[in-house]
């Protein structure tokens, strides 16, 4: 989707933003309506769909893989998540063919950076390490189905939603011949003559309450904005992608850490504005974390066979 704004339209928009009134009636630190649904794809281990302002539409699916690695060459434990962002041509014809690859790779790289210390941040992620040389690999694949601004923000919400929906099977690790191990799915023991295959495998979930959120803070005129619409994105001077992670080590007294800062697009920024933008990201993330936690708690489990886009 291409947006062409005249100079006067841009001036109107910039003047409005500087007076803290946006074209759709929001103030600078307001998000559009967010819709989050989990468990939308039965073919994945965890999935989530996020809609932002009714148009930006993100679908995330997670597939688990049992990965073997060489423990001799790998000194420090690697975090198990792999991010891949794909821009579907459905979102805009400019993403057809290889059109969206560059932007997709840029965002995947930012997520890889933001989640690079996730073993320290997320309390039970280290459980994905099963035995010497074996671990679960978590493939987080994101598909951008519709595009109307603030893609990284929506993706970060969808990733957290999908991670919270992810069910990882419990396994039993037993030593085997030749220093190897055998990994078997763990099933709870049930008496009677129920066959082993008919008992569902035990599952566990990740603790997502301190997963990093990625927010784009944009500089338009002298104002800082969150969640830009496509029209506003035409007027951006400079944009920062800021990753904020909540640390829950001290209950009731949450602190927020910055896990990633990245400038998107071009533009110049003063040191002072960068500080202001980070401060704004932190302030916004408090509200967003709260809303997200509430939604994840309140959302009902989706009925099997129920389709999500209908």
């Amino acid at each position, binding site marked *: 989707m291409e947006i062409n704004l005249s100079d006067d339209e841009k001036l109107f928009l910039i003047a409005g933003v500087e007076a803290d009134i946006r074209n759709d009636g929001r103030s600078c630190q307001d998000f559009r309506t967010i819709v989050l649904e989990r468990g939308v794809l039965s073919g994945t281990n965890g999935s989530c769909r996020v809609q932002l302002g009714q148009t930006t539409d993100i679908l995330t699916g997670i597939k688990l893989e049992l990965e073997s690695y060489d423990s001799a060459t790998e000194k420090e434990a690697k975090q198990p998540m792999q991010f891949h962002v*794909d821009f579907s041509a459905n979102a805009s014809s400019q993403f057809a063919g290889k059109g969206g690859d560059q932007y997709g790779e840029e965002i995947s790289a930012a997520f890889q950076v933001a989640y690079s210390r996730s073993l320290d941040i997320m309390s039970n992620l280290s459980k994905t390490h099963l035995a010497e040389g074996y671990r679960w690999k978590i493939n987080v694949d994101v598909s951008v189905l519709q595009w109307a601004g603030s893609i990284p923000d929506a993706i970060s919400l969808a990733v957290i939603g999908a991670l919270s929906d992810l069910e990882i099977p419990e396994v039993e690790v037993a030593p085997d011949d030749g220093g190897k191990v055998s990994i078997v799915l763990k099933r709870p023991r049930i008496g009677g003559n129920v066959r082993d295959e008919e008992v569902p495998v035990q599952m566990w979930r990740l603790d997502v309450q301190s997963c990093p959120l990625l927010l784009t803070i944009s500089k338009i005129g002298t104002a800082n904005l969150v969640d830009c619409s496509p029209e506003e994105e035409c007027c951006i001077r400079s944009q920062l992608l800021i990753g904020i992670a909540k640390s829950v080590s001290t209950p009731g007294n949450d602190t927020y850490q910055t896990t990633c800062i990245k400038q998107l697009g071009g533009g110049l920024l003063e040191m002072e504005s960068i500080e202001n933008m980070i401060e704004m990201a932190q302030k916004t993330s408090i509200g967003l974390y709260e809303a997200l936690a509430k939604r994840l708690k309140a959302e009902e489990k989706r009925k099997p066979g129920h389709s999500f886009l209908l």
Partner: protein
Amino acid sequence: MSIISEHGFRLDGRRPAQIRNVNTRLGLNRNAEGSSYLEHGNTKVLCAVYGPYEGKASKRLEDRCAIVCQYSTTTFSGLERKNRPRGDRKSTEMSRLLEKAFESVILTESFPRSQIDIFCEVIQGDGSNLAACVNATSLALADAGIPMKGIASAATCGIVEGNPIVDLTSREETDLLPRVTLATICGRDEVVLVELHNRLHIDHLSVVMEAAKATCADVYECLAVVAQQHLKACAPILGN
């Protein structure tokens, strides 16, 4: 496990000539001229149509419009994770097949020197992906109001021990059984696409084609109802 049980049921409980549930929704995508979402059981496809617009000069045709299709699957759509959503040999082949099929469905002479883009995204693949894409594209084109000879409908059919089975799931597609994807216009005898996988005995060909044609007609009934309902829902906007 045999494809058809001794009582005549398939693995998911269907009869051999029974299609899966078809669910659709039109006009989801606000950026596109026309869009559709279509489900055949667990196969879920999104399709968007952009155009007709003045496209690239390299693709421009003087007497008719150029049709550009792109078939892609999300990396998590199948049983195993894929590394690339598009660009591999199989999806390029699918794109070309769709392109050729819809070049003969759309009245391309009405839009000389223009281009129509058709993008199909398989969100979840559970067999008959190409057929689902054809059906989704037909609906998206209808939603975009692009003149066509008729609504194209498609179905994938296979044959087990001389008996045809229709609308295959991915479990049924993994077996080495011959399968034919057929697309017709308005469920009539106008074939726009036919594709065969694996080897098929010549005696079975007419049986499979007959079954596929009948299924296309069935699917067409579903699509026609959806298109008509959508048109009725849009009537207040159109003003009559």
